[in-house]
Each structure stands twice: as structure tokens, then as C-alpha cells.
């Protein structure tokens, strides 16, 4: 909320600014408005898949994971409401690609993979996404999934209060509080 601080957008460990909640690029907007953009919908299956992909990125350990924070359901709402048609197209186009990668590597759909296989596949997609971004500056669908996983998880109540720390009414400010490694970070600035 403090606009005067760093004007840094969320990079979310994905090497690029947060996608969503920004206007369509001027160059694209005119074209897409004339041609009716296609409407995308999420099936319940999509949400379950996203939950599992998110859980692979941020798994439950001794603290809650992405599924506990209902990250899949959050992605559905955020992509539908905050993404431009072009961004939605990239995101929705990514789900069959993710399944195709799973099929190519293991001969099975993502949901059928075991935890180790899922982690391996997601690591590979993460590298692929970073490589595409580095080489061409283009966004890879997995970058969107990872951003929304991190954003959706750490801004959730579960993420903010059980994985990070949150005090609704701090009441005072201490600018020099002792900190020991391993202690949780504050949820918000």
C-alpha cells in the first residue's frame, strides 16, 4: 500500500513481473476487441490438476501446502477475472501442454504420476520456462502457473498465518527486533 517505497513489481521467483491485473497492451487491444475473444472456462478437473501442480511446487511439510490454501480455486478466479484474453489464452493453452509433457515423459497424465515423477516433471517445466524467458523474453505458461501458485499461496490465510506470520494489530513498531534463522517471515509489509 505504500506507493512511495520500492516500485518493484512481484517477480515471484519467476524472473518476470506479475502477470494479471494490468491492461492489455495497446497494440493488441484494438485487434482483440474487434474480433470477439474466445471465452475460457475452468472445469473441476482443471482445478484439481492445478491444485496438484501447485502442491508439487509448494508441498505440505510440517506446515500447510498449496492444496491446503486452495490455490487451484484461486487460480481459476484470478485467471478468469484479472487476466487479459491473451494471458488467458496462454494459461489455458498450457494445461494440455502440461499433460502432453507428462505423457511424453512417463506415458501417463499428470494426475497418475507419483510424487517423485511430478516433482521431476515440474522441475523440468520450470527450467524450460526460465530458458524460454531468458532466450526470447516470451512468457511460458508454466511461469504463470508458478507465479499464481506463489502469489495465491502466500497471500492466502493459510499461507499468511500458518506458513508466514501475521499480527493484525501490531500496536507498536520495533525497528530492531532480534531474528534467528528459521523464524518465519511477516506476511505483509
Amino acid at each position, binding site marked *: 500500500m*505504500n*506507493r*512511495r517505497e520500492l516500485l518493484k513489481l512481484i517477480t515471484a*521467483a519467476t524472473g518476470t513481473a506479475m502477470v494479471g491485473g*494490468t*491492461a492489455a497492451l495497446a497494440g493488441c487491444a484494438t485487434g482483440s476487441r474487434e474480433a470477439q475473444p474466445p471465452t475460457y472456462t475452468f472445469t473441476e478437473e482443471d482445478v484439481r490438476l492445478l491444485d496438484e501442480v501447485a502442491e508439487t511446487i509448494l508441498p505440505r511439510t510440517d506446515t500447510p501446502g498449496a492444496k491446503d490454501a486452495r490455490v487451484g480455486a484461486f487460480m481459476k478466479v484470478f485467471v478468469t477475472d484479472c487476466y487479459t484474453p491473451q494471458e488467458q489464452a496462454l494459461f489455458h493453452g498450457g494445461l494440455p501442454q502440461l499433460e502432453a509433457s507428462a505423457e511424453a515423459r512417463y506415458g501417463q497424465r499428470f494426475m497418475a504420476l507419483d510424487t517423485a515423477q511430478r516433482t521431476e516433471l515440474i522441475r523440468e517445466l520450470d527450467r524450460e520456462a526460465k530458458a524460454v524467458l531468458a532466450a526470447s523474453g516470451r512468457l511460458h505458461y508454466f511461469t504463470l502457473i508458478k507465479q499464481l501458485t*506463489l502469489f495465491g499461496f502466500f497471500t492466502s490465510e493459510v499461507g*499468511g498465518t500458518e506458513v508466514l506470520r501475521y499480527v493484525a494489530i501490531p500496536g507498536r513498531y520495533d525497528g530492531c527486533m532480534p531474528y534467528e534463522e528459521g523464524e518465519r*517471515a511477516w506476511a505483509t509489509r
Partner: protein
Amino acid sequence: MANNHYDAIVVGSGISGGWAAKELTEKGLKVLLLERGRNIEHVKDYKNATKEVWDYPHRDRPTQEMIENYPVLSRDFPLNESTYGMWADEQKNPYVEKQRFDWYRGYHVGGRSLLWGRHSYRLSPMDFEANAREGIAVDWPIRYQDLAPWYDYVEKFAGIAGNRDGLNVLPDGQYQPPIPLNCVEKDAAKRIEKAFGGKRHLIHSRVANITQPKPEQGRANCQYRNKCWLGCPFGAYFSTQSSTLPAAVNTGNLTLRPFSIVSQVLYDKDKKRATGVEVIDAENHQTYEYTADVVFLNASSFNSTWILMNSATDVWEGGLGSRSGELGHNVMDHHFRCGASGEIDGYEDKYYYGRRPAGFYIPRFRNLGGEERPYRRGFGYQGAASRERWDRDVAEFEVGADLKNALSQPGGWIIGMTGFGEILPYHDNRIYLDKHVTDHWGLPVLAMDVEIKENERQMRRDMIQDAIDILEAAGATNVQGSDWGYTPGQGIHEMGTARMGRDPNTSVLNGYNQVWDAPNVFVTDGACMTSASNVNPSLTYMALTARAVDHAVKELKKGNL
């Protein structure tokens, strides 16, 4: 018509209008306070004040629908879920951009006093002298000494947390204890002091967030939630609602009328006095007239000028105050969005508790003491040090438990700051009426034709390089200087368009903010500014308003208005 008469009418209920209403009512005048937007009642109507980020379906990010409804707001940070509906409706209130101008308006009771940055600095003696010394625009009709007692007066009431730093460039005021610097900032301050031979200073920001309660105003001290923009249920920051409006209401002399768009000041050309105002009811579109002995225009810089442009047009085509040829001209803002950031090694065993609504400030240090940079005036910085959060890059962990574990802990310390630079008053930076475009009520709208020029562009080079030098001196590494680009209006410090001066032929207002051609009309918001300084302006509007009311009431008693 008897019940439509008041001793005074105040147009606009933001920072300066709230002050005008408070001062006038406390001096015993019956006051009508007109506000074009809806009412927002203190605490009761702060509907998001206790919500958390997870209570918003989109976690406080704007949706495409919001972006479509607010094409201007969506250009920058202000459009979000938590403050949605707190900015003027852009569909009903269009304006014309001869050049791109980002205009952020608060059309509701309290105006932008609910949505301000709260940094509260005094202009310095040199700010009031600069135009005359440099032969730029016109001289301010007042000096620092004229305003100093009024700064004292408004600071005590508003409640400013700050430190008395004893710097000539930034006069000290009447402060409550400052909001603390964190340990990284404290050490940075010492290093900067040493590195620049005591010529550059990192100090506490001075903000209108109280650190000690004000029980007489029903206000608690800051609770460090950093949710000021959602309305503070503790009344811990200065706003019309928390401070000036209750004071005015308590006198029993105030009538507040929301949904009241003032379309013109009614003018008696024989008496050379305003007789009142014409109001269009924003809801039923009916027109009403209210009369008064004195009128204060506090509708926000551009809207106060808009009212003048629409007033007494049978006498002056360009409106009341246009005789000078300066009405609508000399638009200023503060240019910003450039600076630097870097990393601070160490302090891994230090963190902070609480969320500050403030940070540090570095007052102007350029073009002082005989220094001559290739531009006029100067700039200050606002910044903060903090530990990185979950949105940082952790290259060593791609996905999985290690990633989650790493992001659950704070990252390293970072420090960053943004410059705020003075914009000179250029005659050709102007707003004017565009009669071909009308708003929801059929009223002509403003057109904006404003740009920064070579002086500001030159200054921005220093704003970036000096930020790099200062942060490096503070011990930061990997320091990156940046220019994020500036568009006029983004500072949300629009000023000028009805400047104060010493001569009715070159200024719109005199030294007490009276319209030269209608001495019972006062303009005490940002429109009156003769130059911009580089410090945040709202505190100065408060002081100018209190001073103008004092003068107005004395003049009324003498029968001069």
C-alpha cells in the same frame, strides 16, 4: 431564500476544505460545507479497514472489469480491490488529455485526505524566495515567516510524527515522537552523514500519523497496521473525518451537504463580491443557489480553478480571476518515479515488528550554498529498508519443500528510495475548459496540456545518480539506479492554476488567497501555489487555509468583505 444563506460556504471537504470548515465554524460562523460526492462516515463507512489480503477474491489486484472502468487509475498503482470505489468515477467524470495527464481524484467527503501519503514537510524560506531570486514566474506574496506560526498551529492539531533535525533546508515543526527508523536505516544515516561531510541527511519521515494519542479528538496512536488508505478505525492519521470534520461539527455551526456539485460562484459585478454559489445536486440534477458572505474554494487544485473558469463569465469570458491571463496556467506537480535500490549485507539477526506507514526521508541537498547544477531547484527522497519477502528470487531452489521453506523466511535486507523533484511553474503548462466534452451532469470538462521540460529532465539525472551514490555510501551493494518514467499528475500533487502573487495583472490571488476581483472568495488548496518546492504540499495547504480564514474573519468583522 432565508434558509439558503450562510455566513460562509466551503466548497470541497478534503484536506484544505476540512480545515476551512473547522476554522470558520470555530470562529462562530455558520458554514455550509459542500462536497460533490457521497458521504463517508468516520469508522462506520471504512468497509475494508479490518480486511486482510486473503479476504479479497483477487488478493487486492485489479480485475479486467475494474481496469475497463478506470482507464486512468489502471495506468499506475492506485487501482486495487481494497480501495476500489474510493476514486472518482471516470465514466461520469471524464477529462481531455491534450497530453497524457494522470488525474487521481477523490470525490467523496474527506476527498484525498483519506487517500494521501501523509508526508508533512514545511516549505523552507528559500522556497518562498526562489522565484524572485531566479526571475522565474512571479514572486510569492508571502515569506516563510508569514506562514511559520500557521505551520505550528496546524501541526499541533493534525499531529505530525517527526524528528527535529535542525536543518535549514527543512524547517522543524511541532512534532510528536517520530516513527522509528529500523536498524539498517539508522546505520545508513550515520554512514551517509560521514560520507558527504554532513551535507546529506537521512532523517525520519515526517508523517501525519500520530505516535501519541489525542484523546481530545478521540484519536488513538498509530497501531502499525499500514492500512491507512482503507480508512483508520483508530483515527491515527490526519483526515477530514478523523480530525477537522468532528471539530467543525462540534461547534454546532456546520451544515454538510454531500452530492453537491458547485457549478459556479455567483458574482455581483457592481459590488465586486461573490454572493454565493450555484449547486447542481449530483443525484437529482436539480440546481440550487446558496448565498454567503464569504466563499472558500477547496475543491482540489484543478476543480477550484474549473469553478472560477465557469464563474462571472458575463464579466470576463475566461471566468473569475482570468483577468490576469494566468487562470489555469502554471500547472505543477512533483516529478518522481526515479531513484535507486540496492542490497545491504549482514543484519541477518535483525528484523522488525509492526508495519510502518512511513520510512526515511532525505531532504534536498542540491543547488544549496552556492552550488550550481545545470538545473534550478532540487529534490528530496523517500525510501525505506526492509527484508525481502516471499516474492523475491531464490535461484537455488526451483520447486518443492526447499523452495517453500526458503520463502517462508525473510530474505536479505534491501534499501530503496524514490526522488521527488520540483517542477517549475511554466505559463504554457495549463488546463482549460473543453466545451465540446461534457460530464454526466452536462458540465464542460477540463483539458490538460502539461509536460515536464528540460529543467526537470536534467534534474532526473541527478535524482538517479545521487540516489546511487547515497545508497553506495550507505553500504549497499548491487545498487541499481532506475527511471520508471513520470507522467504529469502521477505525483498526485497537482498545484498552480490560480497562483498567489503581488499584482492582479500577473496573479489570480493575493497574499491572503483572495481572488483579486472578488475579495470574499478565497482559494486555499493547491491551486494557489506560486511555486512547488520539492516537498509534499498538503501541510502547506493546511497552514495557508488557517491563515486565510483568520484574515477572512477579521476582514468580515471590519466590514471589508
